[in-house]
């Protein structure tokens, strides 16, 4: 699904990713953990194609295709989805209209007609029920005045609507209470299949109790310094990151 080779990226003069290697196969869940400033969100943004970051070395492949010079919207059309850590507020555009626009743009890119209004409504109803989202919520302006929990739930709702091949959840657990966390995790689990893959970026082990990863990677100073199975997350929760930092320094 996703293959990252020796990826280096910088913003302005600051090098943030310093040689990432990662392979994610269809059907897998990968967790990426690490201390603040280790490059987790940058990695997510680079995969999604944010232009602010400059890739200086290495490649990102999606299903064997090099994503170099691919615009964010084209990556989305190819099946990449990023759940934002801080979803942007867009006053004046409702959640429903936003989703209609996004879905029809994706269809257009694939040479398909707009989705019939009836099918769209059905899809919206189905997916909003999955995320336990109130209908009224869908007519509100995108993310405007949403609580932290509502924003994150709305991100996963969008993921459910767009059905990506590769979903990257960037700190989706931050700002969520336990009920919202359960709803969000439940949504992600229902969307999981043998044909798609999920990368969960998180600080804490908490979310991983609900979305159980096949692999856990620790990112430190722009590199993956340790990989393991889900037990690594537990170990990190217990010992913190300091021992890894020391190990990496050696």
């Amino acid at each position, binding site marked *: 699904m996703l293959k990252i080779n020796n990826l280096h990226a910088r913003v302005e003069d600051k090098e943030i990713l310093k040689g990432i290697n990662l392979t994610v196969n269809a059907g897998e869940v990968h967790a990426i953990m690490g201390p603040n400033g280790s490059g987790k969100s940058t990695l997510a943004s680079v995969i999604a194609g944010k232009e602010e970051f400059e890739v200086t070395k290495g490649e990102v492949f999606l299903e064997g295709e090099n994503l170099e010079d691919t615009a964010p*919207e084209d990556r989305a059309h190819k099946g990449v989805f990023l759940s934002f850590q801080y979803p942007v507020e867009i006053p*004046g555009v409702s959640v*429903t209209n936003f989703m209609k626009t*996004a879905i029809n743009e994706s269809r257009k890119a694939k040479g398909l007609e707009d989705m019939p209004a009836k099918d769209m409504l059905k899809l919206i109803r189905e997916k909003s029920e999955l995320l336990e989202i109130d209908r009224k919520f869908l007519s509100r302006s995108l993310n405007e005045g949403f609580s932290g929990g509502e924003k994150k739930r709305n991100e996963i709702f969008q993921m459910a609507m767009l059905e990506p091949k590769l979903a990257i959840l960037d700190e989706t657990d931050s700002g969520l209470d336990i009920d919202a966390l359960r709803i969000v995790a439940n949504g992600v689990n229902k969307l999981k299949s043998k044909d798609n893959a999920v990368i969960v970026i998180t600080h804490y082990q908490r979310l991983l109790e609900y979305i159980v990863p096949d692999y856990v990677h620790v990112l430190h100073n722009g590199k993956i310094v340790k990989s393991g199975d889900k037990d690594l997350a537990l170990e990190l929760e217990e010992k913190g990151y300091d021992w890894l930092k020391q190990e990496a320094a050696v």
Partner: protein
Amino acid sequence: MDLKEKLVSSFLAFENGVDVDNPVHDIRSEAIKKFEAKGFPTKKEEAWKYTSLNTLQKIDFSIFPKKESNLEYRDVKKYFLHEIDTFKIVFVDGVYSSFLSETTHDGVDVCLMSSALNKPMYKQIIDVYFNKIASQEDSLTSLNTAFSKEGAYIYIPKNKIPKKPIEIIHFATGNEAALLLQPRNLIIAEENAEMQIIERHQSLTSNEVFTNSVTEIFAAKNAIVDYYKVQNDCTTASLIDNTYIDQKGGSAVNVHTFSFGGKLTRNNLNFYQNGEHVDSTMKGVTIIEGKQHVDHHTLVHHIEPNCESHQDYKGIYGENATGVFNGKIIVEKIAQKTNAFQQNNNILVSDKATINTKPQLEIFADDVKCSHGCTIGQLDEEALFYLQSRGIPKKEARALLMYAFANNVLESVRIPELKVRINKLIANKLEVRLGFDL
């Protein structure tokens, strides 16, 4: 002969066509003297620093259209809010078109200024209201007053609400190579009366048109007036809109100005709060490109305590377009507990577009809440990336963000069909392919 001389000398000819014994004519005569003394405003005046009338003054405008023009409704239907039933006061090249209009005297008066100025039954009202709130100092207002003869006259008595919204539309047919229009409107809402008005100026050819309009609005106690100005004209049409609003206690007047096109557009919007618990709202969306110029000058004069004013103007300027926003708020010493809010946000789409924005607050009372803010910026890159990451191409994402930026001003539009229309106009202007119906 320059335009000023031409106008001053035309006044004699104008007098041949009106009743000079009418007391209104004394007002006109006084006004032409004022215009003659002051002339057109120049860039040396602070209020006209960024808007020049020089090129307009070089054009040889016809002051009295010679030919009569007829328009077929089907040819101009799209300029009306035809989705709903409305009263219509329509002028073609400055002349009233009874064929395109639908006026009424049934409980309310929706008719013509020429009737109001000439018929004895309106004399009392004209004596009380005509030229009473309009500036006596502003030279363009004086110019309009001097030639005041035709326009819309709307009188809504106490506790009355007209059955439907009122459209005031001025068409210019291009029968004249260059035409000067000076409509004069008088709008009165008595106690507890309510009304909705849509005003539009539309040139139908690329011949030059210059409109210098004056509108006086009087809102008595607890009256509500919603006024929508749709300015989406040709790039050879210029408009100076001078609107003066007098508000008594508890009244609410909301003016929305949609400036989507024109060669030069200047809006002088003036509110005078002559009562307590008055609410004055000004909203504006400006979207222009090419070499178009739009200038919003607003004034709110808080003269009584416990009043509110809200201003929210959004602007998007492309190519070589230029914009001006100057928002003046005066809070007199007696006007305690005033709540005055002013906001002007702008997006410059091109490197060559400019906006000059200035809040101008003169506050003499100490217990007031006044806030103002203006921003000039480009589109938010993070928001752009967010939309792109959902599969919306960059061009569409930019358009969608601009659309979102502008269209939240529309929330307060209270005629749903008009709201849809304006929404579509904004979408078309920004070339946004809305993946949804409005």
